[in-house]
């Protein structure tokens, strides 16, 4: 994995508000990296710093032995797909796509060839002569993508490009965009607040919280090995057990299990699908009893909320025929290794 862009200790403040705090990460050649976070997490600011629309307060950006943050945006080998597409309203679709090439002094013949290829790639050839106001949001999104990719950037930045589309079109575009990224082989840095979208599309996910990088990992790893309680709760559902560790034994309420962790207050994340109906007694699993409080059908699975005698509440994902009814008493278990110790601001 060769590093394409190196983000080193980037911090950004607007007046007294610190929007980014000491962000360091590497973007690899050809990877699909998603920067995920709630609104206000600083993800858009990070993108704008990479594009050059904002100057970082401190820190450096490096690309191929060159300091990127010293260059104005129009000299960076980076292109952006804007959240609301930002197509030029006075130019046709074709001229929008050819804008960067014309500005860059590419010959007329080559511009035409490349514009046509880019329009074909996003299936917009038929609309080349139209103005942006005459095409739909999804089509504008494709044009914005073609306009950026036609310049063959080393890195493509995408600022929540799918957020303005309705749910069905959005799912379709997620797949198309991912396929397109594989096809062109250009590294994508994709901004979103939608964790499902991040999981579906990314090679790696960088999760931001309050301007800090919480974790950067593959979707599988970030889901199964969340580093912090925030990550565990933001990505999918989880049961966060706040307890303590003493002499290799974790304790949370009345539950105990062996762990390899330092002594002290610790939080554990147990995914709902890792809690199941207990089979037999005396195995290594952590077993407990609880009463069903709420049950919701999700198609392939159903989510059941169970409250234990000592007040602990568990969310459980059950597959197959749901026998659980509200009021039922269930005997449940999870394996000790499925309780992932996570850093937790409250437990510390």
């Amino acid at each position, binding site marked *: 994995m060769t590093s394409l862009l190196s983000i080193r200790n980037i911090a950004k403040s607007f007046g007294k508000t610190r929007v980014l705090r000491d962000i360091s990460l590497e973007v690899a050649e050809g990877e699909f990296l998603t920067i995920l976070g709630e609104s206000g997490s600083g993800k858009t600011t990070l993108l704008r710093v990479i594009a050059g629309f904002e100057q970082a307060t401190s820190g450096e950006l490096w690309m191929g032995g060159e300091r990127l943050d010293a260059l104005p945006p*129009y000299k960076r080998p980076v292109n952006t797909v804007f959240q609301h597409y930002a197509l*030029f309203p006075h130019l046709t679709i074709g001229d929008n796509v050819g804008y960067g090439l014309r500005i860059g002094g590419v010959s007329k013949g080559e511009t035409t060839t490349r514009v046509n290829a880019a329009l074909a790639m996003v299936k917009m050839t038929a609309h080349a002569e139209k103005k942006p106001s005459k095409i739909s949001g999804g089509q504008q999104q494709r044009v914005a993508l073609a306009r950026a990719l036609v310049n063959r950037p080393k890195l493509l930045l995408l600022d929540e490009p799918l957020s303005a589309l309705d749910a069905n079109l959005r799912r379709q575009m997620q797949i198309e965009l991912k396929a397109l990224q594989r096809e062109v082989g250009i590294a994508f840095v994709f901004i979103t607040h939608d964790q499902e979208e991040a999981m579906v599309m990314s090679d790696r996910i960088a999760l931001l919280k309050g301007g800090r990088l919480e974790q950067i990992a593959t979707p599988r790893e970030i889901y199964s090995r969340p580093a912090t309680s925030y990550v565990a709760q933001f990505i999918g559902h989880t049961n966060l057990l706040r307890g303590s560790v003493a002499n290799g034994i974790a304790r949370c309420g009345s539950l105990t299990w062996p762990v390899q962790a330092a002594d002290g207050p610790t939080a554990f994340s147990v995914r709902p699908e890792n809690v199941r109906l207990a089979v037999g007694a005396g195995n290594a699993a952590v077993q407990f009893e609880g009463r069903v409080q709420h049950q919701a059908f999700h198609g392939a699975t159903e989510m059941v909320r169970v409250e234990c005698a000592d007040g602990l509440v568990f969310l459980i994902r059950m597959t197959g025929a749901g026998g659980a009814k509200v009021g039922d008493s269930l005997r449940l278990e999870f394996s000790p290794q499925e309780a992932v110790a996570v850093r937790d601001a409250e437990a510390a």
Partner: protein
Amino acid sequence: MFSRAYKAAVTIPPLAWVTLFLLVPYLLMFCYSFWAVASGNVVHQWNLGNYQDLLTKDVYRQTLLRSLWIAARVTAFALLLGYPLAYFLSFYAGARKDLFYQLVIIPLWVSYLVRAYAWKTILGTDGVLNTLLQFFHITQHPVDSLLYSPFAVVLTLTHIYTPFVVLPIYAAMEHIPRNLVEASHDLGASPIQTFWQVIFPLSAPGMIAGATFAFVLSLGDFLAPQLLGGPSGIMISNIVVSLFGAAYNWPLGAAISFCILVLVVSLLALAERLEKKWSYS
């Protein structure tokens, strides 16, 4: 949805107003332009003589051409001054935007006459400008061609109508989404290229609106030429004023007025078409 009585109540008064105070007077003016004056009285004798006079007599033709030329210069100078000002206001004034905006507006609250007289004080033989020129020994004698010349008229009208040019251009620029500027930079365009490729074409409707204001308002102006124009700076409206006044030739005055009206209305129509063509929303 609304009763007939309600619809009548809201539509009839404005229609009556327009008919009574615009259409009827214009119609009267139109009729007058085909009448004649005989021994100091208007006679209802239908003829084309007034229009013939207008087209053949040098004094009318030349004054009309001079008025057009003055209005064209005022428009050009007001655009040259107003466009950069609007651009600065919209893109670079930052937190002081509102203050600068007010500074553009405030002169509009000052009486036209006060501003015209101010230029008289500045440009006169013993005026501020001549005193300064002599004080610094740039000239030995006062320059008397400053005041009472087409130059003075153009200067004053430019001063008065520049805000009318700034405001529509500023409004058009405020409507340019800033992410278009960022997109242009992102695609490799320098700030200068971005200005010519994105900002200038998107501010064109504002420029047309502003230019139309400046041109039409200066073309019809009669106070600036009367106060500062002298004999060489007379404009067509001064002639109309005198024809309706001292000269007591209402028919000829009406014919000239009607010609200017046609000219202005066709200009406005043209401007509207151009604005529509170049606006994208």
